[in-house]
Structures are given as C-alpha cells and as structure tokens.
C-alpha cells in the first residue's frame, strides 16, 4: 500500500519550538457548565436531546435538540449589562469567563462577576490561618495579554436573519444598528474581547464541524511562533430556527431522515437515531454551547505558577477536494497522519480517540475508515468515544467540547461510552467504539487523539498529552516519525 507522505516531516520542525500547554478551560453545554460536570455527565451517558423551546418547531418534523435550558448568562456575569449580546455572544462570554477564572488569567481592571467577588470576601482572611501553616501560595499572576481564537460556523445566524427581516418588514430605517454590529461573523469574538479585556490576537475561524479544532490549531501556532503567550481557543454556536430548519431541509438531522422515510410509511416509523457509528444511525442531533481552552506558552505558564492540565502536542489539517466518502476518508487519514507527525507520537502510542462522529451515515463511516487507515494496526484495539452521542452536533463548538473532555479523560482515565450504541455498523474499522464507559490503562492516558470531520470536507486532528508526561520527541524511538508518516 502506497502511503501519501505528509507535507511535513514531524521531527524537523519540532526542534527548538515552544511547547503549548492547557492551563484551564471553560464550558457551556446542555450537559454541564464546567469541564468536570460535563465529563461526569458524559461518563454517565446522559443525553442532551430534549424538546426545543427556543423557537417554534411547527414547520418541522423534528422537534428535539441539545438546547441549553435554562441558560441564564446573567447568573454568571453579575450586574453587567448583557442586552447588547446575542445568544452566541452570551454563550462565549460565559465560557470565556469560566476559562479565564479556571486558568487564573482574568485580566486586571476588567469588572469582576458579582459571584467571584462575593466568594473572595467570604474567604477567611490570612490572619485566621493557624500560625504553623505555611502562607497560602500566591495566586498565579495573569498573563499581560490574552488572545482569542474562536471556531464557529454561523456566529449568530439568527441575529443576521432577524436584522434583515426587520429591515424588510419595517423599512431599512428601522433595522437595528446594534443587531448589525452583531451580524458580522466575528461579532462574538469581538464582544468577548470587550467584555473580558482580551487585547491580544482576536481571530474567528470557520471550517464547519472542524472549526473548533482549527481554532485550537491556529492558537497553537500563534503560541509556538511566539506571537502570543496566552490564547483562549475553542468554539461557540447557538441553536436557532434558521440553522435547525436549514439542516432539517438539507436532510442532515436524524429527524430529516425520518421525514424522508415517512414518504413510504408512517411518520416516525424509523425513529430518530443520532447515534455515532451505530448501524441504524440516521443523522445528527443539533446542539449548542461554547467551550474555550486556555493555551499558554509552557515556560510562561510555569513562570507564572499556572497549573498545567495537558499539553497540545501537535495537529494536522486536510481538505477533501474530491467529493464522496472515499475523498473524505482520505482527508481524514491525512489530517491524522499530519497530527501524529507534528506531535512526534507514533500510532501505537495513541491511547484513545475522541471521534467527531455524530450519527451522520456517510461522514461517520468516512471518519472511521480514514482514522483506521492512518493508525494501521493500532485502530483495531483503540478505545474510541464519540461524545456527540450525548451532546449532539455543536458544529463550531463540537471539537472544543471533545478537547475539553479528553483533557478530563487524561486526568481520571475515564473514557465516556457512546450512549445508545446498540450495534456497531458491520465492517466499521474502529471496533473499539463502545457503548460503555471504560477505565483506561495508565499507558493509554499519556497521548490522546481528537478528530474533527466536516461534512463539507474540512478535516483536522489534534494530539493531546497528559501533563508532566515525557516529551514525545524524547520518548519516541528513532524511526517512528517515519512510522507516523
């Protein structure tokens, strides 16, 4: 078998470059608003899908999604005025606040949430501490400047469409200037920067279901190149009528499949099965949320005393310029090979995979075939999860959720099962995709792989490493870069 050689030689570009670490994360999701809570829900196999209340679904033969309910942004941010922010921006502002707090990177001079201030005031003053006890360690100083790279597919399609429709209904003089400011696709990133005083690089990346991973990749490169010391990176996406209806009509929701099937039988006869890799999957369940990881230069993070949760070891990206499942699978394989080569981790050392699979019949299969082609023998025994079984397809936020949860898995060794998986599609070359949550062996908790696959052809992969683990460049025997390629 002739293997396409990646465009890069992993080892050669690794020499002397900065290491990138994860020092915290913030999550807003239908299954929890902290990495730990989300992980607990995923490990327990909870599912986000519920009847939609955000908008009327009368015109749609599919009525469930991963709506965050209740989502009270005000409860997180205290007294500050949320009115100028649409739903996507609110999701992002909250995720950013949680990530900044979790990593100790809140920017000085920026208004603090009421809850945080109250908690500090309740903390016992240092004088009350027993005399024998050592003084509490100084909290890590925040970086001088924090950047933001956001992955999103739509930002707020609802805001854009509402702005347009209001102008059409009432005349252009009645269109809302505030909505217009929010209608640009980088609006959420801009709003979060204003809210939290993020004065570093501010970028928005759109690559379909791979957006969140491409944002992590771009942030990694900025830190590696010394262009940024600390960057929040991840994704955000809101649930709205426009995108839900659009995907429904495009036949991509599990409910759209039912609609198609209904032509030959009673509505709902086949049910809605947004179950990744399952033999009877019939589309994805749309979802919403935001997730950001704080990526920092390892030396700078260490100097400021930040806790390291994981290391970003490498990434790869490719595009399926040729349509069809085979083209997509080939692009998946290339992205995984490039990520492994960039990380200097051979396939045999990958401990587990958080797959992009969402229940889409064609895309899930292409992903499995592509990953297996890249990993070779390792694919047969690799523990695989696909958390969209629980969370649904969050588009721009999906891969960021995957990365956040995989950091938790590297910590406690628990790899969530694929809820609802009854029978793996016969012949699917990832037999380690399982319904039940598993405890990973210690050796499988060092290096983990995230894949993100967009139905429109965008493929990306990311290798995460456990904190304090050996540098793969040192740990990998000679010649393994060639294995990876």
């Amino acid at each position, binding site marked *: 078998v002739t293997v396409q050689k990646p465009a890069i030689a992993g080892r050669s570009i690794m020499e002397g470059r900065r290491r990138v670490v994860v020092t915290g994360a913030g999550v807003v999701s239908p299954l929890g608003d902290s990495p730990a809570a989300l992980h607990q829900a995923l490990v327990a196999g909870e599912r986000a899908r519920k009847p939609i209340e955000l908008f009327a679904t009368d015109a749609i033969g599919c009525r469930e999604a991963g709506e965050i309910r209740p989502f009270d942004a005000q409860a997180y941010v205290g007294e500050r005025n949320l009115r100028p922010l649409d739903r996507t921006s609110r999701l992002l502002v909250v995720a950013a606040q949680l990530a900044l707090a979790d990593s100790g990177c809140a920017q000085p001079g920026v208004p603090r949430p009421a809850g945080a201030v109250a908690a500090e005031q309740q903390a016992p003053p240092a004088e009350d501490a027993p005399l024998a006890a050592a003084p509490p360690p100084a909290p890590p100083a925040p970086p001088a400047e924090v950047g933001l790279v956001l992955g999103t597919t739509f930002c707020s399609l609802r805001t854009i469409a509402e702005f347009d429709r209001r102008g059409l209904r009432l005349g252009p003089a009645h269109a809302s200037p505030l909505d217009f400011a929010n209608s640009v696709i980088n609006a959420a990133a801009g709003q979060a920067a204003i809210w939290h005083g993020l004065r570093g690089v501010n970028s928005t990346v759109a690559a379909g279901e791979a957006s969140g991973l491409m944002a992590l990749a771009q942030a990694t490169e900025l830190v590696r190149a010394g262009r940024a010391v600390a960057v929040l990176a991840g994704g955000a996406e809101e649930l709205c009528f426009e995108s839900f209806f659009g995907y429904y009509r495009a036949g991509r929701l599990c409910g759209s499949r039912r609609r198609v099937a209904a032509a030959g039988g009673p509505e709902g006869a086949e049910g809605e099965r947004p179950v990744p890799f399952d033999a009877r999957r019939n589309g994805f369940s749309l979802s919403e949320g935001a997730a950001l990881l704080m990526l920092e230069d390892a030396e700078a993070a260490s100097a400021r005393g930040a806790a390291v949760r994981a290391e970003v070891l490498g990434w790869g990206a490719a595009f399926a310029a040729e349509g069809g499942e085979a083209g997509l699978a080939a*692009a998946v394989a290339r992205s995984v090979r490039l990520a492994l080569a960039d990380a200097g981790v051979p396939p045999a050392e990958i401990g587990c995979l958080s797959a992009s699979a969402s229940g889409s019949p064609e895309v899930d299969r292409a992903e499995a075939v592509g990953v297996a082609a890249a990993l070779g023998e390792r694919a047969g025994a690799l523990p695989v999860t696909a958390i969209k079984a629980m969370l649904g397809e969050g588009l721009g936020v999906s891969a960021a959720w995957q990365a956040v949860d995989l950091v938790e898995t590297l910590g406690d060794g628990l790899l969530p099962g694929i809820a609802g998986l009854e029978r793996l599609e016969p012949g699917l070359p990832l037999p380690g995709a399982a319904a039940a949550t598993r405890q990973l062996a210690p050796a499988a908790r060092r290096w983990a792989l995230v894949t993100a696959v967009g139905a429109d052809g965008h493929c990306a992969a990311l290798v995460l490493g456990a904190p304090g683990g050996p540098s793969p460049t040192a740990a990998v025997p000679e010649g393994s870069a060639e294995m990876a390629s």
Partner: protein
Amino acid sequence: MKGGSHEVSEARRIAVTGIGAVTPVGTGREELWASLLAGRLGFAPVESFDTSAFNVHLGAEVRGFSPARWVRRLDPARLGRASQLAIAAARLALADAGLDGTDPSSSRSAPAGQAGPPPQSPPPPPTQSMGGVPPESAGVAMGTTSGEPLEVERFDDRYLAGELDAVGDEFMSLYPCHMIAAHVARELGFAGINTMIPAACAAGNYALAHAVDVLRAGRAELMLAGGADAFSRITYTGFARLGAIAPERCQPFDRRRKGMIPGEGAAVLVLEPVAAARRRGARIYAEVAGYGLSCDAHHMTAAHPEGEGAVRAMARALADAGVAPEEVSYISAHGTGTPTNDRLEAIAVGRVFGAGARVPISSIKSMLGHTMGAASAIEAAVCALAVAGDEIPPTMGLEEPEGDFDYVPNVARRHRVDVAMNNAYAFGGNNASTIFRKCNGLATDSSV
C-alpha cells in the same frame, strides 16, 4: 543534509508570486492596477436591489461578472456569489503565477496589458497545474465579512412570504461562510489545509497572516490567500443605519468626507516560499515580510479613541518584519472615508511613524469603495504591486486634506517602494497590519 540557521531563515521567507482580483474597477491584476493608477472610480447607483427606501443609493458593485467564465469544474449555479468571485480571483491568481498554462489570461501567454474576453478554448483540465506541488500540500485561506449573505436574504424572503417549503438543501450547502474556501479548493483541487477566517473588514489580512504561518511551519508548499464578499442588502442596510454611507463621493482623509461606500469583490494572492518560487523561476512581486494582529477590546463598531490597538498591530508587524518605521515607503490605509475611522487611523499612524512623517499614505477605497472581507486582500495585492512597480495609487476625491500627512492626492505617483504596510481594521476591534518588501538583494537559494 539540510541545516543551519541560514536555511531556516530562508525557509521562513514567503513570496507573493500571483495576484488575482475581481473588483468594481477591474478584473485581473493588470486591469485593477491600471484603473487604480488612473484614479478610476467604481461607484454607481446600486442595481442588485432596490434602494428607494434608503436615503443613499451609491454602491461599488462588480458589473457584468460571468461566473461560467471562471467556474469550470463545479456548477456555477450551485455556488453563492462570494464563492464565484473568489474562484475567479483564485484562477486569475494562479494564472498570474504561471501555474495554469491553459488559462488565456495567464500573463505568461498573453502580452502585458492585454485584457478582454478569453478566446474559446477546449475544456480545461479538472485541476490546476501547481508547479509540481502535490494537491495535498496546496491550501486555501480566505477571509470574509458576511460569507454568502445573499443566501440568508433568499431565506428571509421566503420566510416573510410564508414560502419556507421552497427552502431545500441549498441553504446549508451554500450559506455557511466556510464554503467560500471550500468551493475554491474543490474547483481547483487544492487538498491541503483549508481555512475561512471571517474577521470582518480585516479578514483579508488575517487570512494572509494565517497562510504565511502555514507556509513558514512547512504545513503547505503553496497557499492561496485572500478575501471575498458579495454586495448585499444586509450590509448596505447596516451601514446606512449607522449613517456611514456617503451620498455622493468617498473621500478618505478629506475634511468634508461623509462616509464610505459599500462594495464587493475578491482578491487572492499566491504565496509560496521564496526558495521554491526561485527554483521554478516564478516572478516575485514582493515578499510578505511580517504581520501584526491585535484587538482593541473597546467597542464593536468604533475604533479606540487613541488608536491603541491599531498602534500595537503596526508595531508588531514592524517588529516581525524587522523593519524600522522610517524604512516604510508606502502605507495602504484602511481609509474607509468615515469621519471617525480616518481621524483615528491618522492618530494611530502618527503615533507609530511620528506626527510629521512624510511616508505616502493612500486609500484605494476612494475608488472601489469598501469591499468588506475582500478589502484588505485587494489592498495587500496593491501593496505587492506598489513594491514591484514603484508606483503608488492615489487617494481620490481629496480636496482639503485633514492633518499633515502625504495622502497622495488624486494622482498616482512614481515613488520607490521598498517596504509597504497594509493596515486593516474591523468590527469587533480587530486590527491587522501586514508588511511587504522587495525581494531582491538577498542571498540566493543555497539549498539547491
């Protein structure tokens, strides 16, 4: 064996070897450049939608654009307009780089200055010849403000007419902005990294910066980088509501300026390592010497009152390029023509270059309006052309300059341009500066 610091730095040098553009004042590098040097204006009453309910009516639309001329592999009817414009710009850029021998507008096969419709030619090959670069190592990075806004408008028309049943799969297969970069890549067979950066009106510069990083890291051998936006009632309505659209003329940096004029277009630059470009004997317009990004974190639509973020972006770009302010020989301004932008931009430039700096500054938005996500990509092309040809396009409509800068009023100028800076500012407080310089007087490629 490869190795040594010299080779590392050589590998990090990135060249602009092709320029393609579709703009309100011309299609293709030669026509665009000739129009800009001649001071041709691209403004006319808007035709793509009814402006009778507005109190402004001018726009800078691309007229007479024929998608079928450029979109050959995909079905042009299954693409949004921004994708069509982007594909045209990408094909022009590749031809300009000598990477498509079949394209009649290729500068290699046509005498300089020859424009006009292509002769009838046999069906083209499915993908471009890429100078020996495998498709997997050829990537696309594009910027935009609105993506494919006409697809939302079509959806909204149906929504308000109660005709949602007419919505089919085209909405989600045409609308998401990542489809612009995806369509370019599918049309041309580029299978490397594919990124859409919707960083609003600085998006072209952001995409260029990303492409430079990708090439410097060895993640691709060839990149198409640029921006695209389609003329849209959403954008027009928004800027009209902000009171930002000029009723008659776009006059950046003039005391009596009344605003910007929305436009549309696309520009794509072919980027490749300098060493690779030299190996294949490509013409190098300029080297992308560096870039700087920052965020005001101040206001969604208004720049920081002291130009704080813009100053940081410029300073970072200069440091990245290893260029001192006095070495910059031309600044392509963001220069929208709105009272606020131009005033704050002049303050920021003054803080970096000194209040009495004599560096020529011009805004081509005085001619082709504000083409949104395409703007800073077109302006990057202009910087590369200024560096290559030692000519600077004028700021048109300039009668009473505000402040003391040299805005190159109304007439193009011959002027040696060793280093050009391209400034772009966007909603969300995004700032991006890129720097281009002459690619000569440098060590020849030692690794061959």
